[in-house]
């Protein structure tokens, strides 16, 4: 009889909410809204990120929330912010617009690499926690920064695998492992995932989840890549929990040694 694993037996808990999917996904850069909806559905993700932007005073029409609300846990971000002050205002606007105190905190220091500005990130995180936000910070893969964010009261830490949209995967798996080992709050690799094996690798390192956007939205076939990512995150998680064999320099026969003909 095939043993079936219930998603509920290994659910992801962030703050006071529980999720059966460990894949978080973005809503941007899809070819069109239908592909976005189909890809997000295929991914099995339950948490979807959105940005907060000035209303296009010339345009109108439905917002991304009109398409997604009700089916997903919406996680607004502070993408595009370069200072703690801007991130705080964006978070407050997000809280008012979406009636959620969950926030993906991003404070960027450099336009080319979109690398987090740790100084502003820590300041913003401290103030947001004080104001009652559920803070999920996008951060460097630096164990000290992650520890500080955790100590400040963030609900998770989200170290990058590599720069946003770069598709370079996990550049420093050793740091990700250290971050995982040192923190009891969820560790979610966020940024740089390029393909399914990157997502599986993050999970095999023991991470609690993966957040990706470009890897799916800019793939040639976003819906198929979303499917791949769903399987990759599940597979990597099972592999991690299964306990892998160690790496060895020498072979260890996988077939029995006794009863071989000709011996």
């Amino acid at each position, binding site marked *: 009889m095939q043993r079936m694993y219930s998603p509920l037996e290994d659910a992801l808990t962030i703050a006071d909410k529980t999720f059966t999917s460990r894949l978080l996904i*973005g*809503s*941007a*850069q*899809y070819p069109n809204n239908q592909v*976005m909806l189909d890809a997000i559905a295929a991914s099995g993700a339950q948490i979807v*990120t*959105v*940005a*907060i*932007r*000035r*209303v296009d*005073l010339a345009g*109108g029409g439905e*917002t*991304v*929330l*009109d398409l997604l609300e009700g089916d997903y846990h*919406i996680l*607004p*971000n502070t*993408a595009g912010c370069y200072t703690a*002050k801007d991130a705080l*205002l964006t978070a*407050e*606007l*997000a*809280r*008012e*617009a*979406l009636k959620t105190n969950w926030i993906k905190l991003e404070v960027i220091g450099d336009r080319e690499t979109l690398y987090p500005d740790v100084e502003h990130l820590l300041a913003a995180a401290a103030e947001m926690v004080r104001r009652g936000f559920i803070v999920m910070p996008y951060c460097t893969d630096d164990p000290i920064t992650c520890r500080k964010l955790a100590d400040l009261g963030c609900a998770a830490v989200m170290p990058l695998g590599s720069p*946003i*949209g770069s598709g370079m995967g996990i550049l420093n798996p050793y740091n990700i492992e250290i971050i995982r080992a040192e923190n009891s709050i969820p560790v979610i690799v966020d940024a740089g995932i390029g393909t399914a094996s990157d997502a599986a690798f993050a999970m095999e390192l023991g991470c609690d989840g993966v957040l990706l*956007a*470009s890897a799916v939205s800019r793939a040639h076939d976003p819906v198929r890549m979303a499917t791949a990512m769903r399987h990759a995150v599940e597979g990597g998680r099972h592999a991690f929990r299964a306990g892998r064999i160690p790496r060895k320099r020498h072979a260890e026969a996988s077939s029995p040694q006794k009863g071989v003909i000709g011996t």
Partner: protein
Amino acid sequence: MSRIRINGEKKSLDVSTVDELLRAEAVDPAARFVAVAINGEVIPRGRWDSERVKDGDDVEIVRPAPGG
């Protein structure tokens, strides 16, 4: 007439409240998922019909957009 900065653009408008400002900018005050800040302070929807917009104010009108 008040000189108000709206979403980064300076405009001259003859409006008193946030509600009036939104209408002047073709944003339906009843639209969902809209948030407003004046001079860095979020103005909750319940105060849109009373909160005054003054000359020199810096107003942000935002809504959710696709993001990663």
